[in-house]
């Protein structure tokens, strides 16, 4: 009897696994990626790392580029970029999100609008683009790499993108 019960339990788990193909099958709904980017955008503005720890895959070798600079790993991104930049009154806009899917991989291109005030009182207003790469991991899209670049809206700055 005990063996039968154990068998039934195992069969139930097996069926439960089969009944939830969503974990293995990537969902190619752009709204999922757009929701992640909105969480990330708000996280940037508020200096809140929670959105990043939730939506980013913290993997060895992760790099996040902005302009020509980079953060190495998720913690470096949050503590040395997200949090300090929010203290400058960052206002970040995302628009025109274009998401592309290739099986369990996706990338999204977004137009960005950045406004902040530097510690020495200089107002910065840049526009540019961001590219977010994502993988389908355990039933969710996870950001694995980012790159962004921007240039001043008014002033000419040939050395920057």
């Amino acid at each position: 009897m005990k063996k039968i019960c154990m068998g039934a339990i195992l069969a139930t788990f097996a069926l439960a696994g089969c009944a939830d193909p969503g974990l293995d099958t990537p969902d190619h709904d752009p709204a999922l990626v757009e929701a992640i980017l909105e969480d990330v955008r708000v996280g940037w503005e508020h200096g809140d790392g929670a959105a990043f720890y939730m939506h980013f895959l913290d993997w060895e070798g992760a790099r996040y580029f902005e302009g020509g600079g980079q953060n190495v790993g998720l913690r470096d991104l949050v503590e040395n970029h997200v949090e300090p930049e929010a203290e400058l009154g960052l206002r970040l806009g995302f628009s025109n999100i274009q998401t592309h899917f290739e099986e369990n991989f996706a990338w999204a291109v977004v137009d960005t609008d950045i406004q902040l005030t530097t510690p020495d009182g200089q107002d910065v207003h840049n526009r540019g683009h961001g590219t977010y790469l994502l993988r389908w991991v355990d039933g969710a899209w996870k950001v694995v790499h980012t790159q962004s670049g921007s240039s001043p809206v008014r002033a000419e700055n040939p050395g920057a993108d």
Partner: protein
Amino acid sequence: MRPTPVGSSFKYVDDPSHAHALADDVTILESGGVETKQQYRSGRLSGDIAFAQAVPREWGEIQVEVVDDVAWAWSTSVTQGRMGDREVNAQGAELMVLARDGGDWRIKAIHWSSRPRR
């Protein structure tokens, strides 16, 4: 299997053997906006070639990650020199997304960004 992402050289060399690596629906991002393959090749490519010939660029190692039939590659660079009367001293980053098309890798997205060196 490592993809052959062409590295960064194709951007600066108008060579048909490199152009085939770009997917027809490639997205190219740099300052100035989002461009298609046709827009880039008929637009800024010649200027980029002239810039690359005039200003030396030192590339870092290309890092590649492969996930099944998709890969992404990134690298960094330092550009230092003179273009006409303009002094250039910038650090940059490059990102490419590639997908396997049959037996070949095609570049589906490119993002170049840079900023003045401090």
